[in-house]
């Protein structure tokens, strides 16, 4: 068989083809390499770490001076030295002290990397909370929104009114206000309904809110399905419920992915609002590092992390879309 020259050219360049096909993935990989390589390069030996700990810390431990223990910085330094084998603490030690080591030797770009290395663990912790909150609340919001969407299209008036009212309320008031109300207002109004945990409060507020937004997406997707599908299902004797769950809703998946990806990225950034109930998400961590070190470059680092997260999830949603396409 003769091959098309264009095909041949494509075949001869598998690497370029890969790069063209997975642009975002390549960018993420490059970004990760840019973060990881300096980290690996700046990890000093164990001896260097121990020697880098100020002598006064070690002396303090020997004295067991209870008053000095109240100083959080010193206490954590001691903790680090003691549990040097515990993986979690070692991570802090390695990164933190590594930063210190470079910090004393250089400035300029090296200083930036030193700071970067120092900040990264707490920034990543913040990012973890942000991602966790986003995934859980969008997932729960999606489930909630299916019922809201079906309710809004229901022929039973009270259900329809409730769902209309719900969507009107949660789309019409600021998420910030809903968060305030849930965390600060509700315990004062009804003490029995106090939410015990900050994360739980944020999760509830975000779920209720994104449920309202996704409900409209789902309703639009359902109504975009060809009327003939409903008729065919009815002619075959399927009930309303069977029609919805077996015929209509599965067809909306692919159409739902772009608006859901949108919603996901919105929530990811709205998660910064949780700082008002003192939840340490990425934005709050960033700002507290900024206020304590007076170094604005942390903003850049933080924004890069946001971009990496967004890029990864865009890629995931993109491949989901491909997977659900049957056309």
């Amino acid at each position, binding site marked *: 068989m003769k091959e098309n020259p264009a095909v041949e050219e494509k075949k001869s360049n598998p690497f370029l083809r890969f790069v063209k096909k997975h642009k975002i993935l390549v960018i993420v990989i490059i970004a990760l390499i840019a973060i990881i390589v300096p980290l690996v390069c700046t990890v000093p030996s164990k001896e260097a770490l121990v020697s880098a700990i100020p002598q006064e810390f070690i002396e303090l431990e020997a004295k067991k001076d209870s008053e000095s223990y109240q100083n959080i910085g010193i206490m954590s330094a001691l903790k680090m030295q003691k549990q040097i084998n515990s993986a979690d603490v070692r991570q802090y030690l390695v990164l933190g002290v590594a930063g210190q080591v470079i910090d004393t030797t250089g400035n300029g770009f090296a200083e930036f990397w030193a700071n970067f290395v120092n900040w990264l663990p707490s920034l990543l912790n913040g990012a973890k909370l942000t991602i966790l909150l986003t995934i859980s609340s969008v997932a729960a919001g999606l489930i909630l929104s299916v019922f809201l969407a079906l309710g809004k299209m229901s022929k039973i008036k009270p259900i329809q009114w409730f769902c209309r009212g719900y969507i009107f309320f949660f789309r019409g008031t600021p998420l910030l206000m809903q968060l305030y109300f849930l965390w600060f207002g509700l315990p004062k109004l009804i003490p029995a309904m106090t939410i015990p945990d900050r994360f739980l409060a944020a999760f509830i507020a975000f779920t209720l809110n994104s449920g309202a937004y996704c409900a409209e997406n789902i309703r639009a997707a359902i109504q975009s399905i*060809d009327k*003939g*599908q409903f*008729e*065919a299902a*009815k*002619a*075959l*004797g*399927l009930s309303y419920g*069977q029609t919805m769950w*077996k*015929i209509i809703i*599965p*067809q909306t998946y692919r159409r739902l992915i772009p608006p859901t990806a949108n919603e996901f990225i919105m929530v990811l950034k709205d998660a910064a609002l949780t700082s008002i109930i003192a939840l340490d998400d990425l934005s709050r961590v960033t700002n507290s590092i900024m206020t304590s070190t007076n170094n604005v470059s942390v903003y850049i680092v933080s924004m890069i992390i946001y971009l990496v997260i967004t890029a990864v999830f865009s890629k995931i949603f993109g491949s989901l879309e491909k997977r659900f396409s*049957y*056309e």
Partner: protein
Amino acid sequence: MSMIKTEKLCKDFGDLKVLKDCSLTVEQGEVVCLIGPSGAGKSTYLRSLNHLETITNGKLWVEDKLLDDRINGVNQIKITPQERQQALLEMGMVFQRFNLFPHLTVLENIMLAPVTVRKRDKAETEELARELLNKVGLIDKADVYPTKLSGGQQQRVAIARALCMQPKMMLFDEPTSALDPELVGEVLQVMKNLAADGMTMIVVTHEMGFAKEVSDRVVFMYQGAILEVNSPDVLFTNPENERTKQFLQSVLNV
């Protein structure tokens, strides 16, 4: 036993009267074709038979069971939704635009309703589904998604899907109107085979050749009313109604 009987069936969309006093009886094993200009109410009549449209006035029997006796949209007889549903399951419907479920494979399309609605055994249904696919000549397409098929193939799948519910009669709503001309034949052939097997069929069609060849009776509809019911020989060669004559002239002389 008559399969379908309508008496003075009327359908209004607001002030617009789409069907006016349509009375027709279809016996078992009969093939009846509905012809007429567009907007005559042929499709609406067919759709009101299996309750895709709710009739405004008139009576409707399915297998001699009175399902509707409506006056101004209110049903005068008491019938549970289950009873009505049971009677309507005996009617298979084929649409102009096929309306296959695009997210299911051909086999899943065919098996869905018998398994979920009729609660049939899955293995038995699959056997029947494959048999029907064989009958419509698409056995090799069982695991393909509908969008990969041509219009004619999709319509044949749609016929198999309706047949898998093992209905006693089939309604066809312009089954070949959305097809490319060269694909019309394969669908009509399947329908001819079905008629030869003794299936009761009501077909809305613009295929005059098919109506002439296959049907036992032809119904001419005009502006929402049934103007003439006759055997194809009489209707196509020597129509009684002046309107029928005009319609046939305009259609056959194109």
